[in-house]
């Protein structure tokens, strides 16, 4: 029966394999690549934030409704009701009531274009 001493002596006749010659260069290359990649990491945060803001703005713009002209709306409702109401009557009323440009009351007292100072 082998003693612990004999067994250890047997084990010490051998050594664990050495690393292959390419391992060191591969490890150093990995570190160099990590260093290169980290130099551009700072861009992604602000770029992502800018993309989110742009997306939010475009959604807000798309969701913005046309300003409602209350006078026209009343005319459309009157005509639709005169025609008997319902979706078809409404659609017809929308077609025949012209859309007027909405006048900004704040500009009413501005000078007319043909007036000169």
């Amino acid at each position, binding site marked *: *029966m*082998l003693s*612990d*001493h*004999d*067994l*250890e*002596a*047997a*084990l*010490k*006749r*051998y*050594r*664990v*394999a*050495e*690393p*292959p010659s390419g*391992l*060191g260069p*591969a*490890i*150093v*290359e*990995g*570190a*160099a690549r*990590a*260093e290169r990649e*980290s130099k551009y990491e700072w861009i992604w945060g602000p770029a992502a934030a800018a993309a989110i803001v742009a997306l939010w703005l475009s959604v807000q713009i798309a969701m913005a409704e046309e300003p409602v002209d209350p006078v026209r709306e009343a005319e459309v409702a009157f005509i639709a009701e005169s025609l008997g109401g319902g979706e078809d009557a409404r659609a017809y009323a929308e077609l025949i009531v012209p859309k007027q440009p909405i006048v900004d009351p704040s500009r009413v007292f501005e000078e007319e274009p043909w007036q000169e100072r």
Partner: protein
Amino acid sequence: MLAQTVAGLYEAYGPRLYRYAVLLLADRAAAEDALQDVFLQIARALDRGGFDVTFAYLATTVRNTCYSALRRRRRRSEVAEPILEAASPEATEEERMMIDQALKTLPAEQREVVYLKVFEGLTFQEIADRCDVSINTAGSRYRYAMQSLRRALSPGVSRAE
């Protein structure tokens, strides 16, 4: 700069860490992968903020990486590539193959203790500290490992005079 630092660490500790990983994993290719993972982790950590990288820190990281790899490994891989090389004129190929195979059949925890005791020359207290176990556990693992190796090797290993 970072690459130079890592190159210096590999030169100082790489081969010793590789041998540790080979014994833990009983697989040279897996040990190469483990070491590349560890040094990449170290490179990224150094890049975020410098800190003192010691051998003890690296050894612990290698150990943790190897045990994670062992947990992910579904079953023991039948690796033909030897993990031992001859280191003495008394070494024989037949004996090397027997010891190689016997080590591969040990549980990783026992193989680790054998490596640290026989090949690194650590005391049982140092082994206990490295493995984060009690000195009694380190001793037990070594005893069981030696019993298994003795059973596997007795007929074929030459006795010292």
